[in-house]
C-alpha cells in the first residue's frame, strides 16, 4: 500500500491515468454535441445557407469540468483509497499482562479503551501470546489465557466509581509479582492516584511496560453548595490548559415526574486554571426538584454531583397562637424558631388556611390549642400525605382541654391538665436537665450542653404506649419531645414553649441540631463526621462508574461518620443515602478534591487510543462520480434544449414529490379558525337539508347585517358548523334548526356540545313549526328536538318570564316572534329563591347566560335576506308582517346582546333608566 498525504492507495498505479485527463479534455472539446432534429417548415428558406465557420458550438467549460471531475473521481475511486491506513509492526512473544485502571475517570472513553484493548488482544492473538487482565479497582488473580478468550470477556469490564485505594494497590502489586508475565500493557485513565508508582515499579520488574491512555483532560464536579441565594457549582479539570467553557446541566424531574434538564449554566475555565466556578440562581421549587448537576458530555461518575438536603430549602410555615402582643419580639413564641430556621429554610407566614394550599414541608404550631374542625381535618390530610407537624406547648395548650381525654389526632400523646412548673419561686426542686438521648431516638448522638434547663412543661398522660412515642426526655424521665407517625407524615410535640419562657432549650445550639435531625431545617454545609454521630444511613440509590444511578437494593446501611469520612470503595459506593427524613449524597469528588493528570517516567512509552479503523473511500468517490454524471445528463439535456419548460416542470415536480407534503387540511382548519375568531361570527348547525341550511345561513346573514347597522357588534359572515368535525368554541351563538330527518350527532359531538354549553355557549333551538316549542309530542320536529337534546346537559327550563333579561338587553321586548308568533319560548329556569322586591320591575336574577333558548318561531326564516339584502321569505301580511319581521330582528339583537354581555342589563344600576323608559 502506498500512502499519500495520510490516505493509502491499494492500486496507486491507476493514479497515472489522471495524467490523461488534459488529453481527454481536448478530445471532448473537439467533438461537437449530437445534433437535434427539428421539424421546421421554414427550412425552405434555409436551403443554401452555409455556416459561417465549420466549427460547431463547443461544449461549455463548466460542463467539461463536471465531466473531468467525474472521470477523475472514477480514477481515484478505482485506485483503492483507504483512510487511516495501518502500518506493520514487529512481533512480540511471552505472556502479556494487561492492567486496567478502571476508575470513573476512564468511563467517558471506556468504549474506545475497550476497542483499543481489543486491537491489542487481536495482535497478541496474532503473535500467539497468552494474556491476563487485571483491573486495579477490582484486583483479582490474573489468569493467563488465550487472547481470543479475553476478547469475549471484555464486555465484563466496567469502570468503577472510585480510585484504587492502598489496600487494592497492595493486592495488585502482590498479584503482579506472582503473575510471571514477560511484558505489561497499562490501559490508564490519565488521572494520577496514590500508589500508581508502586504498581509501575512492580510491572517494570516483569519486563517492558507500555502505557495507553486517552490523554484527554478529565473533568470533574465538586458537590454543589448553596450560598448567597444561588447554587454554587464548581467544575475541575485535570490539566490546566487554554480557556474553555463547559456546560453544567441541572437534571431533575419536571412537574409530571419525567426526568428532564431543568437549567443550564456555563462554567468558564480561565487560561491555565484547573477550576471553574459558576452559580445558578433558581426558585426554591425548581431547586428542590434538582437531583444532580452534571457536565454536559461528561459521562462519568466524577463529572456529576448528586444533590441532597443541603440544596433543598424546606418551606416551613410558622403559626403562633398569640398574635395580640405586638412589640414583644423576644417573647414572641416564634422568635427563636425564626432565628433558627431563617438561614436554612424558607419561612411562610399567614393563617393556616392560607399556607396549607402552598403545601409546606413543615408546619410549626407554637402554643396553638384550638382549631376549627375544618382546619383540623385539612391539617390531618396534609400530615397524612407526608407533612411534618411540629407543635410546641405553652400556656394555651396547658390551659386547654386538648388531647385530655383521648389522643387528639394532631397530638402525639395524651396530656395531663395544667402542666407543671419546677424550680420556680413557688415550687420545689431544681429546673430539670435533659437525659441522654436513647439510641432509638433521632437525636441519638447529639451532645447535650450542660446549661439546658427546663423549668416548665406540659405533662404526658402515662400509658402503655407512651414510651415508644418519646424521643427525648428529661433527667427525671418525663417526656420532653414526643412523636407520632401519621400516614406518611408525623406529628412532633415539644412539651415546652418555643421561646425561652419555659426552658433554655431554644437558646442552645442543641435546639438547632434537633430541628435539623427532625428535617425541619437542613444544613447548608456538608455535615461533619461528629454531626452524624450515632446515625445510620441507608443507601437509596448508588452510582456506577458512568454516573448512572441504580436502586441500592439490599445494600447494608452505613454509619454516619463513615459515610462522611471513609474513602469510596466496594463497601462505600457513591450515591444517595437516607436517614429518617434526611437525605445525604456521597459524591465521587469531595469539595476539596484536586484532579492531577497521570505522569509517567520518560522511559515508559505512552500512546493514545488507536484512531479510527481504516476506511475504504472507493465507494464514496464512485458514488460522487455517479452523482456528477447524473448532473451531467441533466445539464446536457438542458444545454441541447431537450429539457424544455414542460419537461423542466416535470423534473421539478418530481423533486417536489420527494419533499414532504404540507398538511393542507390542517391549513384549512387553521384558516377557518382564524376567520371564526378574528371577528364575532354567528354559526348555525348544518342539518344536511340544503334548504334549511341555506335559510339558516341567510337568516344569520340578515341578523349579522342588522347587528352591524344598529349596534356596536360587527359580526363577520356567519358560518355553517358540522358538529362532528368543527370546533364549536369559536362561536358565541349556535343556531340549530331542527329537521325531522337530520342525523343524531355522535357521542364525541355531544361531549363537545356539552363542553360548549358549560363554557358559556348558547344554542338557539328552532323547531320551525310555530306550535310545539313546549316539547310537544305532536310534531315530528318537536319529537326530533326531544331526541336530539336528550344527551345534552340542559338545565331546568321555563317559558321566558316577563322579567327575563332577554326582554331588555337591547330593545324592550315582550314577544319573540319569527315567521310565526308563539309565546312559547323556553329558557333556563330562574333560581327558585328569586323574589321580586317591592317597587322593582324585575327580580334580581344575576345568574349566568341561559345555555339554551328553545322555540319554534322559525326566526332564521324571518331574518333571511338574499345577497342584495332583500327579505327572502314573506312574514305575515302587509305592514303588520313587516312589523313582525322587525320584532324578529329585535329578538335576534337582544339574543346576541344577551350572549355577549350576559346579565349586564339585569344589574340594578339600570333600573332608573329602564323604569323611565317603561314609563313607570
Amino acid at each position: 500500500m502506498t500512502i499519500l498525504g495520510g490516505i493509502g492507495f491499494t492500486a496507486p498505479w491507476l493514479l497515472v491515468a489522471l495524467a490523461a485527463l488534459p488529453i481527454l479534455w481536448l478530445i471532448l472539446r473537439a467533438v461537437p454535441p449530437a445534433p437535434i432534429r427539428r421539424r421546421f417548415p421554414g427550412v425552405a428558406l434555409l436551403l443554401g445557407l452555409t455556416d459561417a465557420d465549420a466549427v460547431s458550438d463547443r461544449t461549455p467549460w463548466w460542463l467539461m469540468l463536471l465531466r473531468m471531475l467525474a472521470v477523475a473521481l472514477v480514477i481515484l475511486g478505482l485506485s483503492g483509497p483507504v483512510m487511516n491506513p495501518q502500518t506493520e509492526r514487529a512481533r512480540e512473544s511471552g505472556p502479556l499482562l494487561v492492567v486496567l485502571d478502571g476508575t470513573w475517570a476512564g468511563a467517558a472513553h471506556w468504549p474506545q479503551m475497550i476497542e483499543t484493548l481489543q486491537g491489542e488482544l487481536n495482535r497478541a492473538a496474532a503473535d500467539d501470546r497468552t494474556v491476563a487482565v487485571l483491573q486495579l479497582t477490582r484486583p483479582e488473580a490474573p489468569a493467563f489465557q488465550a487472547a481470543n478468550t479475553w476478547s469475549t470477556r471484555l464486555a465484563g469490564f466496567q469502570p468503577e466509581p472510585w480510585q484504587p485505594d492502598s489496600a487494592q494497590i497492595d493486592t495488585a502489586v502482590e498479584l503482579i509479582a506472582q503473575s510471571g508475565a514477560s511484558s505489561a500493557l497499562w490501559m490508564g485513565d490519565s488521572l494520577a492516584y496514590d500508589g500508581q508508582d508502586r504498581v509501575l515499579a512492580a510491572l517494570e520488574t516483569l519486563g517492558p511496560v507500555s502505557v495507553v491512555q486517552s490523554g484527554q483532560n478529565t473533568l470533574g464536579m465538586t458537590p454543589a453548595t448553596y450560598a448567597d441565594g444561588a447554587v454554587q457549582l464548581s467544575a475541575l479539570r485535570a490539566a490546566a490548559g487554554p480557556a474553555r467553557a463547559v456546560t453544567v446541566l441541572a437534571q431533575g424531574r419536571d412537574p409530571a415526574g419525567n426526568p428532564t434538564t431543568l437549567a443550564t449554566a456555563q462554567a468558564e475555565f480561565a487560561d491555565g486554571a484547573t477550576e471553574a466556578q459558576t452559580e445558578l440562581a433558581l426558585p426554591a421549587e425548581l431547586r428542590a426538584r434538582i437531583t444532580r448537576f452534571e457536565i454536559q458530555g461528561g459521562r462519568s461518575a466524577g463529572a456529576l454531583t448528586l444533590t441532597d438536603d443541603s440544596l433543598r430549602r424546606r418551606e416551613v410555615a410558622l403559626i403562633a397562637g398569640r398574635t395580640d402582643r405586638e412589640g414583644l419580639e423576644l417573647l414572641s413564641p416564634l422568635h427563636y424558631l425564626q432565628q433558627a430556621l431563617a438561614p436554612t429554610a424558607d419561612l411562610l407566614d399567614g393563617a393556616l388556611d392560607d399556607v396549607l394550599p402552598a403545601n409546606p414541608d413543615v408546619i410549626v404550631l407554637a402554643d396553638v390549642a384550638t382549631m376549627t374542625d375544618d382546619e383540623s381535618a385539612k391539617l390531618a390530610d396534609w400530615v397524612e400525605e407526608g407533612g411534618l407537624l411540629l407543635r410546641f406547648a405553652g400556656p394555651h395548650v396547658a390551659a386547654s382541654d386538648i388531647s385530655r381525654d383521648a389522643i387528639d389526632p394532631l397530638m402525639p400523646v395524651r396530656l395531663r391538665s395544667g402542666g407543671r412548673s419546677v424550680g420556680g419561686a413557688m415550687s420545689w426542686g431544681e429546673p430539670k436537665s435533659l437525659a441522654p438521648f436513647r439510641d432509638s431516638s433521632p437525636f441519638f448522638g447529639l451532645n447535650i450542653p450542660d446549661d439546658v434547663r427546663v423549668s416548665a412543661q406540659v405533662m404526658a398522660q402515662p400509658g402503655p404506649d407512651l414510651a415508644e412515642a418519646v424521643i427525648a426526655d428529661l433527667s427525671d424521665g418525663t417526656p420532653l419531645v414526643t412523636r407520632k407517625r401519621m400516614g406518611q407524615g408525623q406529628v412532633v410535640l415539644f412539651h415546652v414553649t418555643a421561646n425561652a419562657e419555659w426552658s433554655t432549650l431554644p437558646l442552645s445550639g442543641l435546639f438547632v441540631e434537633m430541628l435539623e435531625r427532625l428535617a425541619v431545617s437542613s444544613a447548608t454545609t456538608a455535615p461533619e463526621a461528629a454531626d452524624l454521630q450515632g446515625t445510620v444511613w441507608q443507601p437509596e440509590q448508588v452510582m456506577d462508574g458512568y454516573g448512572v444511578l441504580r436502586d441500592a437494593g439490599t445494600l447494608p446501611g452505613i454509619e454516619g461518620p463513615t459515610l462522611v469520612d471513609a474513602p469510596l470503595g466496594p463497601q462505600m459506593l457513591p450515591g444517595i443515602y437516607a436517614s429518617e427524613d434526611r437525605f445525604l449524597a456521597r459524591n465521587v469528588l469531595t469539595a476539596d478534591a484536586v484532579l492531577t493528570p497521570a505522569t509517567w517516567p520518560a522511559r515508559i512509552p505512552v500512546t493514545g487510543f488507536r484512531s479510527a479503523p481504516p476506511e475504504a473511500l472507493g465507494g464514496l468517490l464512485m458514488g460522487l462520480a455517479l452523482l456528477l454524471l447524473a448532473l451531467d445528463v441533466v445539464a446536457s439535456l438542458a444545454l441541447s434544449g431537450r429539457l424544455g419548460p414542460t419537461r423542466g416542470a416535470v423534473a421539478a415536480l418530481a423533486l417536489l414529490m420527494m419533499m414532504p407534503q404540507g398538511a393542507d387540511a390542517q391549513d384549512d382548519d387553521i384558516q377557518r379558525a382564524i376567520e371564526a375568531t378574528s371577528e364575532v361570527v354567528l354559526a348555525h348547525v348544518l342539518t344536511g337539508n340544503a334548504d334549511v341550511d341555506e335559510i339558516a345561513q341567510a337568516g344569520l346573514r340578515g341578523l349579522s347585517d342588522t347587528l352591524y347597522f344598529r349596534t356596536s357588534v360587527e359580526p363577520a359572515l356567519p358560518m355553517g358548523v358540522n358538529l362532528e368535525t368543527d370546533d364549536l368554541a369559536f362561536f358565541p351563538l349556535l343556531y340549530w334548526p331542527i329537521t325531522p330527518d337530520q342525523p343524531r350527532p355522535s357521542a364525541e359531538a355531544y361531549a363537545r356540545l356539552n363542553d360548549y354549553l358549560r363554557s358559556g355557549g348558547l344554542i338557539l333551538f328552532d323547531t320551525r313549526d310555530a306550535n310545539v316549542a313546549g316539547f310537544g309530542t305532536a310534531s315530528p320536529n318537536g319529537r326530533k328536538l326531544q331526541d336530539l337534546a336528550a344527551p345534552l346537559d340542559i338545565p331546568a327550563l321555563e317559558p321566558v318570564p316577563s322579567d327575563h333579561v332577554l326582554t331588555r338587553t337591547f330593545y324592550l321586548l315582550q314577544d319573540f316572534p319569527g315567521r310565526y308568533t308563539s309565546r312559547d319560548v323556553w329558557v333556563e329556569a330562574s333560581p327558585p329563591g328569586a323574589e321580586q322586591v317591592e317597587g322593582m320591575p324585575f327580580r334580581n336574577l344575576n345568574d349566568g347566560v341561559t345555555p339554551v333558548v328553545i322555540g319554534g318561531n322559525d326566526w332564521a326564516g324571518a331574518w333571511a335576506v338574499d345577497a342584495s339584502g332583500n327579505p327572502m321569505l314573506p312574514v305575515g301580511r302587509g305592514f303588520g308582517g313587516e312589523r313582525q319581521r322587525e320584532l324578529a330582528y329585535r329578538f335576534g339583537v337582544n339574543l346576541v346582546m344577551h350572549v355577549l354581555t350576559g346579565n349586564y342589563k339585569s344589574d340594578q344600576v339600570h333600573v332608573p333608566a329602564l323604569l323611565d323608559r317603561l314609563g313607570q
Partner: protein
Amino acid sequence: MTPDPITLRQSAEDQAARLPALLARAEQLAGAVLLGDHGRRRAGTGDDFWQYRPAQAGDSRRMIDHRRSARGDTQFVREREWQIAQSVMLWCDQGASMRFNSTDALPTKAERARVLTLALAILLVRGGERVGLTGTRLPPRRGRMQVVRLAQMLSEDSADDYSPPEHRAMIPHAQALFASDFMGDIADVQLALTKAADRGVRGVLMHVLDPSEEAFPFRGRTIFESVGGTLRHETLKANDLRDRYLERLAARKAELQRLCALTGWHYGVHHTDSSAQSALLWLYRAMDRSVMVRG
C-alpha cells in the same frame, strides 16, 4: 394500392369527427362579427328600400309609389337598393408545412387557416354571397349546405410539403382568398396572382405564420426537416443562421406585398399566437374593401 376498407372507414370517421368541430369553431368565430350593411349603396334591383326620387319622364306609372305621392303634389318613385351576389373563391393551403405548431399551446397553422377561411365563408354566406373553392372541385354556391361542403373539403390534408396555390377555373371578376404560409416556391404564387389579375379577380393574401418562424429561436447543432420530411438542412450553429433566415423571410414578405400591390390584392400576415377574432375582422374588412374598390 386499394385502401383497406376498415382503415378507410376509420379515417373517414376521423375526418367526419373533425368536421363539426371545425364548423363549430368557424361558426363561433363568425358569430362574433356583426354584419355591417353589405349593400351596393346604389339604387338597383333588390329588396331593401333605397330612396324616393321624384318621378321622371320615362318612369312607368306602375313605378309611382302612391303612398308617398299622396302626401303632396309631386309624384315619387320608390327605388330599391341594388343588391347582387358576389362569387368568392377560397384557397386554403392543405400542404404538410401548414401542419406545424411550435408548442402544443398553439394551434397548427393549418387549423388556424381553416378556421379563418371557413368563418369568412360563413360570414359571406350569411351576407348572401356565393362561396366556393378555387379549382373545379367546389364551384361557388350559396346556402348553408355549401358551408358544410366547404368544411368537408377544407378538412382534407394534402401529402405535399408545400402545395402551390390553386388557380384554375377562377370566375372572372370574382373575389378570392388565399391563405397559406407561402413557404413554397414563390413563382407559383406569382403565377396564380397574375392569372387572377388577368381575369379581374381581386382578393386577399393571408400569410399565416407560426411565431417560431418569425423568431427562429434555435441554437446549437441542428438538423431542420420540413414537416413532410422532403427537405432537410443541417447546421452546426443554428443561432448563426438566424439573421440570414430572417432576412430571407422579410424578403419573401416584401415580394408577396409587391405582387399584391401590382395585382390589386390585399396582403396580411397572421401569427397563430395572436387572436383569430382580430384576424377574421381584418379579413372581412379587407374582403369588403376589395369589393368597394372594385365597385
